[in-house]
């Protein structure tokens, strides 16, 4: 089947045909248990579904066909993601597809592409992102984990943290300091590390949501083959930044808000809150926020569809999307009254709803992927041209 699929020219399909094809596949193949989960899915839960996508050649919609992607226009890629979002299909916790793959395609050597890309597409390798450190969060460029060349190997020492689902990954891509003398952005390189190399240890950390969602990742004299550097030594920062545009539009997707709004509507119906003018007003505000968020997202997506680059103003999308998402989940907690103080699902009509799970999931959205404060700093300087 995958062979025939690969010969498809997705761009030749109309938008409606394409969406229907994707929707039908999801309906037929994606199990209900993994859809609309109010938490990050673990690899073992999502693997069977990922393998189905992989077999069909749909695991990496944004990659060119020659590397196992779907080789389609940005417009179709966005439609693809929208269809998955609409059906509540979880994004696999795999930074390989969204980050390291595109990076290797753009900056890697042919040898690196041949080594790593097929294993990502086949779901043999699962990647995690090792950027943040205990003392380098918003100020990422101050990172100190270092790699020193010793013969044919880099010797890595230091610590990464908040590494999402590192416990499920077998590879980590990381930013390391390779020149302590240079200006802070200029001494950083991009390194690929097999997480099972001796000297790497992971300690899962529990979130407020009650899940072990990220890890501290320690590196103690970890020997990494010299050829595992991507691009040139000391040019890792520029490459990492080149990937950020796509991440920002991803993080500005109205999906999370839409899902939460639907849940809030369920709550409003089941508790009779819709009969209360105060609730109706709040709900309507949020509903219109989501409508305008959706339109704003489409406006930025159109820029990508036209093949243009996103400017720094894409930061406003993430700021508004995450603020909206949080407001909705706070209103859920408020509407649920005492049920909003319990970390468990309560019955509402024929359904159940764990409102705190949504509240917890929304909390860090204004922290990861560049905090709202950092995004505002960017907009103030790069868009509004304010001094300082």
């Amino acid at each position, binding site marked *: 089947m995958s062979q025939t699929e690969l010969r498809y020219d997705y761009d030749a399909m109309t938008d409606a045909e394409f969406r229907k094809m994707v929707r039908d596949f999801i309906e037929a193949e994606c199990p209900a248990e993994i859809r609309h989960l109010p938490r990050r899915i673990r690899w073992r839960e999502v693997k069977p579904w990922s393998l189905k996508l992989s077999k069909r050649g749909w695991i990496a919609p944004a990659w060119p066909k020659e590397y196992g992607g779907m080789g389609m226009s940005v417009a179709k890629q966005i439609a693809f993601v929208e269809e998955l979002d609409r059906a509540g299909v979880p994004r696999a916790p795999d930074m390989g597809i969204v980050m390291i793959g595109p990076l290797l395609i753009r900056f890697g050597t042919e040898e690196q592409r041949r080594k790593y890309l097929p294993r990502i597409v086949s779901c043999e390798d699962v990647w995690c992102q090792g950027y*943040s450190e205990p003392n380098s969060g918003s100020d990422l460029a101050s990172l100190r984990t270092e790699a020193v060349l010793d013969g044919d190997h880099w010797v890595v020492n230091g610590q990464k943290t908040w590494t999402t689902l590192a416990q499920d990954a077998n590879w980590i891509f990381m930013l390391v300091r390779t020149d302590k003398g240079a200006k802070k952005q200029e001494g950083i390189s991009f390194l690929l590390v097999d997480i099972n190399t001796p000297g790497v240890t992971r300690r899962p950390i529990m979130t407020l949501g009650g899940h072990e969602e990220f890890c501290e990742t320690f590196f103690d004299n970890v020997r990494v083959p010299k050829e595992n550097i991507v691009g040139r030594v000391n040019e890792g920062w520029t490459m990492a930044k080149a990937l950020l545009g796509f991440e920002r539009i991803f993080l500005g997707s109205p999906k999370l808000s839409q899902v939460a709004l639907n849940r809030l509507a369920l709550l409003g119906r089941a508790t009779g809150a819709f009969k*209360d003018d105060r609730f109706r007003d709040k709900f309507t505000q949020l509903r219109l926020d989501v409508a305008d968020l959706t339109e704003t997202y489409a406006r930025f997506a159109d820029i990508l569809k036209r093949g243009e680059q996103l400017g720094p103003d894409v930061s406003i999308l993430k700021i508004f999307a995450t603020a909206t998402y949080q407001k909705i989940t*706070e209103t859920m907690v408020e509407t649920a009254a*005492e049920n909003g*103080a319990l970390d468990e699902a309560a019955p509402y009509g024929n359904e159940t709803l764990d409102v*705190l799970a949504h509240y917890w999931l929304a*909390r860090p959205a204004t922290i990861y992927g560049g905090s709202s404060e950092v995004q505002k700093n960017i907009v103030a300087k790069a868009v509004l041209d304010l001094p300082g």
Partner: protein
Amino acid sequence: MSHETDDTRRLLRESAADFVARSDIGAAVRAWRHKPEGFDAQRWSEMVQLGWVGLRAPEEAGGTGLGLEDLVALLAETGRGVGPEPLSAVGVLAVRTLAASAGGAQTLGGACEGGRIPAVAWQEKPGALSAGECDTRAARAGDDWILSGAKDFVHGAAQADVFVVSARAPGGVALFELRRNEPGLTVETRFFTDGTTCHRLVLRDVRVPASACIAAPGEGEEALDAALEETRIAVSAEMLGLARQALEMTLDYLRQRKQFGKAIGSFQALQHRAVDLYVTTQIMQSAVDRAARTFEAADARERALIASACKARCSDGALAIAKEAIQLHGAIGYTDEHNIGLYVRRALVLASWLGNGAQHRKRFAALSPALDLV
């Protein structure tokens, strides 16, 4: 305020501050959360010895006989420790309910000296605010009563040996004392997000003697409502304490944490946010002070208004501070290991208990005729 009451409050504050300072907050909370035992019996008996549990019981009932302003002084201090001990649930809600019930003296005395731990089971549905929202039934059977129904969201009952249960009898809502092991009574334990216990009671034809009815049909509702209003103010004081402590922890973090070569607290954007939170705690304090000062002399309707104004302010304030505390801590604030999360969880629980901000604003508006506003 006289020198005497001034001194009483200062001493209460000092001993509460000392109590909180003597233990490691994180360890004290983590040792007991999600445990059916709920809290450290040793610490509870210390609170009893200090006179805190009986603070709002009259002296002749074995209590300390202090006022509401003394109570909030105490709870705003203990609230900083976010400990699991049920000071508000037992020391205020149960104590005030028993004190207002004709037949409550014996259990009240036991609670004040520590031999008994009563818990009040009044609520049935999420969002309920008043004692009158009661579907649990009490029917006469000779001299006995037969109770059936269900109660939920019972706070502070981890070690309760007696439940004060409201039930609707012919003639109105009455209050009954039920032993924990009463035949026909099922007690289910769940946990709130802060790890304290949340009990659900199911009563299937529970048969109790006439002596178990401590507030007669019709009298129970008033007794319970008065206690609920006062407990709203007590819980607000606890939220004031936890909000202040969460703010202080956040300010410390803003001073220590360095990014871009500077303490993040030096960024003006964050300084303004910190000031907003400080303003919030100050306004919360005014709400609590005003409520505590005016409550006791007010009539029932005014008490409801006072309690709603206070609980709305403090619920919203505590949640706002909790949310910002996470944000200003960055990723570490989203971990369960960091103590700031204990404050966020407690804020969620106390904000919802006995009605959250939205519920109380709604009730306040409903109780104030338009003329009152001008």
